[in-house]
């Protein structure tokens, strides 16, 4: 490896950089496949695992490679890549090349399961050649190629190779007679499996190179036998006796024993047998036979159970439906029913063909049978019982698509389940079996039916008792329940009760034989607590999806299980497989997907062939041909004793910064915290900012803090798996089956906004000051040091204000720092406190008063205005009207305006032609003040007279001769504050400037002087000169390429009108959204990682698309920014009055779905990629020395739509305290009630408009307001309303569940 870079090195560098991302991803995959992702990775003593090569393999190797070290490397690398795939790396993996290749170069292997082993060897050989060719890579490039510290070096033993290299976490070597793997980091079992896997692949692959990779296993024969056969060898169990016979046998043996009871009814075995037969006869009469579905729509009760047995007696299919489920859903599930049994209170669909039987009616008929149907007569009455392959029941499970899936189970599976439960749960005569689960939950199946085959008594426990742990415990004692089956969430609730009520716990301990946890993963910590609180009561775990007759594994759980508890061993006649992506078995300890075969495999999803075919697949390990196995979608791994650990759902696996993360693993780690009862972890992704959120319930009497839990988890898992946020809840929301309702949790987390989500208090005084500044400027109660500036609603304007306020406190910052370091924590690292003693105000780089009187060039903003060549350029102004809250004399007002203009030279500017080009100079003449006497004006005319007075000032500005600014003092009738109107030509002022003018003017009127004001920084004329120098001296800093390569061809024309019309024919619409909507919009935007500006732009784009009626396309829109860009370190524009705005074209891709966050993000991404936030465009277009280049930029098509987000204009809130609230508690100045609507006509009616459609959104007083300015000539009224409505609709869609309540008004100028 070279450390210098020559031309060959450059080519290599390019090669490696091109593959860098893939190599990094591959190194992550390798590390995870090796088990390094979440294991303890403290280096220990080196461990070596060896796997011998058979003599046949050695011979094949010699034949294929001819002993050539490079070819031997090819073979071992190829085998290793496949083994890593078997260990869970589904895509590409990265190995480090060892001898004989350049040591330490990464090799990216992507095994294709469809390739033959021979083809695969060929691919790896080409790869080796590439690595050799690009071996001369510099050290810096090389270092950047890998992501993980767990790397696997693969090499071939030769005369010059030593032991494992220092940097390699694991080293695999092919010797002449064996494969060895050495590591200080990885578990010994994994090393051994790896060595064996490589040897096995070499053996199989070389023996038959035509085999496809998908058919090559990595298990040696003993391991393969262990996982496929030994772990699935179970005690013999007979499931051949039909259910009816089993029950009749019990009835014959113990007719008077209680079979079923609830709080109200009791049925003996004799009664059960007779009534079930009567029910069956009724069903038969209604047409029920084999495979006929009987929908039972009723609450759980003893009689319900009798009817269910009756369905099975009749040979029908038992289909329990919850009477309380939404009718629409229930009706769909009833479609396949032959008969519906439902009480009169249940409303059935009108068009239901199936006959309806009433439970009460069935009961009356059963009880009025003259003599009971004796067991021995049943066969005669009902004929032969159901056959093993007949369908027994259907349980509906919720599908991920929202369509319920009916899992059908045949009798042989059903009987097998019951047969396993009888011995395991100690079901026998005299034992009471509590039936607690809802009927629609598959746990209810054995709870209802198993005990009856063993002569036990089934006790139907009412719902209110199930939900009340104290009542449930009391009932367990009273009825001496032998077992109790609950989901872990309920187990936790029950344990809390026991911990709080030791007497109840003791009573239950003396009666209850075992507790069965099922339906959800059981945490090790919960198991430990159970054994602590309930010693002597066996804790069993049971696992199995409804699709395969509920339970497939089961077994005891000890107090010392580690993070994952065992779900037990394989149940009799069931087969469990843990397989990789190619359906190959994985060795114990390696995570794979759990598949279930054998007797328990259900028929499939009734009426859903495609879904069935997707979930039930050929079982390659079955002893009989043609069998199927079920893909559970659960991740699991074998323990070496043949029990299984469940790690969570395969679809619960998320990608977090390139790593596969199993949420269940994090949940287990959180639950290992002794103060945590239950934990659910979700990755909230759609919120823009990816964050792991842990929802926890504490154990009784505890209240772990977020930090404690995070630190605890950090000690067990890699940093990237530590939840970003911990939400402690009193209880977790549950669905009807008692399982945790993840959707409800996600919704709850989504309601929370990012700012309050993870408050981290400041730790230093600098952080504390910055937090306070942010909170003041952003108008928030508090700000944490990790809160994101944009997520809090910050933008570049507020950034400037923060810089300004920070300066007052002696903290030095640049505006760009806010954009680059978006949290207080990061900002504090770049901020500097000025040393004590220099606490004075920020020193201006250049004096800010009228010393600069030489002509200065115009800025791009000014040039773009003059380039429009409007007929009356002198008349294009801004006007603002203030109420003056105390009496002022004319002299006072005049003096204040003079002081103001003394600070801000541009208010005294002149713009004229100098040497053939426009230039600006600053005069010494202050703006004139005119007094208007409106004291006798009638109230209803007052506003129009004020407006008219201001208009007179507007019409009297003169760029060449001056003034460019006029003030008016409006004397109003008695009892009203006088008004001060300020009129300034737009070429010397912009929106931001008004914040400065308002604050300064108000302070001057309060104090009579400018002492309290911060000095003004860089003069505008200085900025204008600097821009020209900048473009001349450093044109390479501008992104010319970007602007010359934009594709404008997708832009859809908005109108084909040639001229955008005149200002006088402008039609304005204002949409105002209420505070609630605005708040949701702003918060939702922040959660999605977008700024308000970006969100608005995306919504407007979607609104335009709808309005234009096009399927897709771009909208050519002119965007604008405040333009006070942070280009020069010695320039401070935070208090400069002038015209800075940028204006540049943008091809806005119009989103097809305004609620699609991805499309909004794509828009945001494009906006963020505009070089220099638009100023590059303006500088290139107006200031670049090359006229040809300027012309090319100017030739970009002219947008017909202008979009300019005003943000939250500070001056509009001004109550005289300076607008931006410096938090220093100064007395407010006298200016208030800022109005711009009656501040005069700021432009002439005949002025040509720049765009047919102008859009100015802003947020004023917490309300989102969108000002639409349409050209009356171009856009007819219905089209205008349609566009406003369409964009409002798009905004509504962008805010989930929010309906805008805009009030719209139209005015004609």
């Amino acid at each position, binding site marked *: 490896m070279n450390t210098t870079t020559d031309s060959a090195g450059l080519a290599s560098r390019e090669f490696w950089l091109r593959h860098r991302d893939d190599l990094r991803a591959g190194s992550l995959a390798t590390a995870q496949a090796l088990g390094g992702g979440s294991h303890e990775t403290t280096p220990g003593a080196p461990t070596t695992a060896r796997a011998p090569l058979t003599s046949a393999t050695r011979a094949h190797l010699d034949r294929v490679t001819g002993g050539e070290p490079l070819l031997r490397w090819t073979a071992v690398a190829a085998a290793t890549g496949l083994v890593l795939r078997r260990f869970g790396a589904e895509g590409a993996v990265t190995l480090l090349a060892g001898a004989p290749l350049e040591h330490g170069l990464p090799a990216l292997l992507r095994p294709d*399961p*469809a390739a033959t082993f021979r083809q695969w060897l060929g691919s790896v050989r080409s790869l080796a050649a590439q690595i050799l060719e690009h071996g001369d890579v510099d050290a810096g490039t090389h270092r950047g190629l890998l992501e993980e510290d767990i790397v696997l070096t693969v090499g071939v033993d030769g005369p010059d190779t030593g032991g494992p290299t220092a940097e390699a976490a694991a080293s695999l070597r092919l010797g002449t007679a064996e494969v060895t793997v050495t590591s200080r980091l990885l578990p010994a079992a994994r090393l051994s499996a790896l060595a064996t896997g490589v040897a096995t692949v070499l053996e199989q692959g070389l023996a038959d190179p035509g085999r*496809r*990779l*998908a*058919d090559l296993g990595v298990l040696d024969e003993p391991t393969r036998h262990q996982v496929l056969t030994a772990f699935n060898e179970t005690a013999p169990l007979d499931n051949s006796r039909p259910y009816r016979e089993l029950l009749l046998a019990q009835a014959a043996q113990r007719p008077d024993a209680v079979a079923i009871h609830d709080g109200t009814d009791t049925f003996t075995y004799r009664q059960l047998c007779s009534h079930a037969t009567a029910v069956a006869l009724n069903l038969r009469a209604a047409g029920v*036979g*084999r*495979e006929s579905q009987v929908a039972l729509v009723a609450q759980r009760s003893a009689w319900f159970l009798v009817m269910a047995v009756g369905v099975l007696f009749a040979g029908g299919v038992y289909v329990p439906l919850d009477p309380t489920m939404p009718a629409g859903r229930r009706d769909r599930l009833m479609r396949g029913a032959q008969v519906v049994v439902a009480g009169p209170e249940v409303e059935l669909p009108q068009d239901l063909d199936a006959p309806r039987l009433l439970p009460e009616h069935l009961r009356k008929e059963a009880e009025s049978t003259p003599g009971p149907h004796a067991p021995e007569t049943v066969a005669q009455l009902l004929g032969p019982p159901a*056959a093993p*392959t*007949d*369908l027994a029941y259907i349980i509906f499970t919720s599908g991920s698509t929202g369509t319920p899936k009916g899992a*059908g189970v045949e009798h042989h599976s059903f009987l097998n389940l019951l047969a396993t439960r009888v011995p395991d749960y100690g079901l026998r005569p005299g034992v009471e079996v509590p039936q607690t689960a809802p009927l629609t939950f598959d746990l209810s199946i054995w709870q209802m039916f198993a005990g009856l085959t063993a002569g036990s008594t089934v006790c139907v426990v009412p719902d209110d008792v199930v939900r009340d742990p104290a009542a449930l415990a009391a009932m367990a004692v009273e009825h001496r329940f032998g077992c109790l089956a609950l989901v872990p969430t309920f187990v936790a609730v029950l344990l809390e009760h026991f911990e709080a009520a030791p007497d109840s716990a003791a009573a239950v301990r003396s009666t209850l034989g075992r507790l069965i946890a099922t339906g959800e993963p059981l945490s090790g910590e919960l198991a430990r607590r159970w054994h602590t609180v309930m010693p002597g009561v066996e804790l069993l775990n049971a696992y199995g999806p409804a699709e395969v007759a509920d339970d497939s594994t089961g077994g005891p759980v000890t107090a010392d299980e580690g993070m994952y508890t065992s779900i037990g061993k394989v149940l009799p006649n069931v087969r469990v497989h843990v397989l990789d992506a*190619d*359906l190959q078995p994985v060795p114990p300890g390696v995570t794979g997907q759990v598949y279930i075969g054998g007797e328990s495999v259900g*028929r*499939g*999803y*009734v*009426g*859903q*062939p*495609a*879904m*069935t*075919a*997707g979930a*039930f*697949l*050929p*079982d*390659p390990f*079955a002893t*009989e*041909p*043609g*069998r*199927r196995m079920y893909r559970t979608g659960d991740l699991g791994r074998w323990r070496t004793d043949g029990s299984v650990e469940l790690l969570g759902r395969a679809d619960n696996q998320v990608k977090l910064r390139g790593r596969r993360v199993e949420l269940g693993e994090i949940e287990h780690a959180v639950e290992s915290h002794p103060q945590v009862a239950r934990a659910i972890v979700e990755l909230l992704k759609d919120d823009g900012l990816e964050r792991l959120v842990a929802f926890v319930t504490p154990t009784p009497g505890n209240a772990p803090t977020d930090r404690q839990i995070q630190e605890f988890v950090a000690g067990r898992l890699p940093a990237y798996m530590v939840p970003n946020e911990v939400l402690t809840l009193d209880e977790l929301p549950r669905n009807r089956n008692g399982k945790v309702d993840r959707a409800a949790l996600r919704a709850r987390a989504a309601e929370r906004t990012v700012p309050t989500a993870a408050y981290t208090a400041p730790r230093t005084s600098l952080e504390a000051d910055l937090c306070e500044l942010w909170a003041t400027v952003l108008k928030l109660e508090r700000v944490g040091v990790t809160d994101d500036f944009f997520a809090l609603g910050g933008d570049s304007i507020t950034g400037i204000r923060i810089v300004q306020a920070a300066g007052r406190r002696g903290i030095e910052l640049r505006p760009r720092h806010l954009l680059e370091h978006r949290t207080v924590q990061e900002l504090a690292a770049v901020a500097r406190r000025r040393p004590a003693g220099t606490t004075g105000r920020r020193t201006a780089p250049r004096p800010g008063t009228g010393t600069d009187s030489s002509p200065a060039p115009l800025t791009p903003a000014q040039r773009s205005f003059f380039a429009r060549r409007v007929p009356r350029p002198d008349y294009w102004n801004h006007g603002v009207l203030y109420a003056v809250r105390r009496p002022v004399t004319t002299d006072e007002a005049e003096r204040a305006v003079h002081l103001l203009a003394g600070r801000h030279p541009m208010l005294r500017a002149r713009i004229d032609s100098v040497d053939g080009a426009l230039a600006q100079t600053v005069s010494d003449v202050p703006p004139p003040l005119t007094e208007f006497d409106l004291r006798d004006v009638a109230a209803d005319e007052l506003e129009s007279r004020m407006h008219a007075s201001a208009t007179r000032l507007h019409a009297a500005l003169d760029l060449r001769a001056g003034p460019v600014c006029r003030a008016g003092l409006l004397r109003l009738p008695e009892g009203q504050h006088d008004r001060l109107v300020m009129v300034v030509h737009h070429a010397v002022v912009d929106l931001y400037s008004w914040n400065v003018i308002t604050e300064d003017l108000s302070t001057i009127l309060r104090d009579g002087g400018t002492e309290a004001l911060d000095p003004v920084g860089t003069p505008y004329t200085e900025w204008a000169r600097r821009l020209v120098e900048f473009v001349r001296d450093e044109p390479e800093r501008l992104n010319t390429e970007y602007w010359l390569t934009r594709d404008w061809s997708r832009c859809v024309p908005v109108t084909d009108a040639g001229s955008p019309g005149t200002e006088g024919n402008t039609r304005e619409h204002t949409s105002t959204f209420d505070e609630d909507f605005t708040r949701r919009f702003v918060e939702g935007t922040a959660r999605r990682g977008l700024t308000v500006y970006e969100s608005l732009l995306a919504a407007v784009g979607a609104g335009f698309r709808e309005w234009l009626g096009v399927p897709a396309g771009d909208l050519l829109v002119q965007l604008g920014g405040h333009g006070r860009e942070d280009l020069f370190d010695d320039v401070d524009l935070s208090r400069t009055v002038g015209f800075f705005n940028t204006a540049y074209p943008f091809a806005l891709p119009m989103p097809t779905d305004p609620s699609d966050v991805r499309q909004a993000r794509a828009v945001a991404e494009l906006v963020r990629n505009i070089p220099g936030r638009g100023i590059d465009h303006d500088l290139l277009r107006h200031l670049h020395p090359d006229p040809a280049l300027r012309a090319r930029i100017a030739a970009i098509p002219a947008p017909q739509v202008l979009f300019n987000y005003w943000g939250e204009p500070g001056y509009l809130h001004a109550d005289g305290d300076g607008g931006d609230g410096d938090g220093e508690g100064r007395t407010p100045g006298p200016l208030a009630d800022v109005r711009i609507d009656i501040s005069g006509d700021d432009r002439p009616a005949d002025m040509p408009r720049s765009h047919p459609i102008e859009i100015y959104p802003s947020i004023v007083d917490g309300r989102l307001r969108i000002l639409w300015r349409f050209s009356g000539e171009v856009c007819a009224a219905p089209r205008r309303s349609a566009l406003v409505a369409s964009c409002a609709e798009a905004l509504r869609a962008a805010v989930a569940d929010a309906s805008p309540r805009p009030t719209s008004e139209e005015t004609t100028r």
Partner: protein
Amino acid sequence: MTYTVVVNDEEQYSLWPEAKTLPAGWRTTGFSGSREECLDHVATVWTDIRPKSVAPAAS
């Protein structure tokens, strides 16, 4: 990954990775494609999920 639509003697349909050897008792139907394409195909050819040995007796 490419799948192929397979069927057993009970006329139960399923999907199998084309790259892998098909287990005993199953035969290919000749239809291959993406997982979704195969499932769509199954939906058109397999209308009753009852095994062959059950279906005629019950209907």
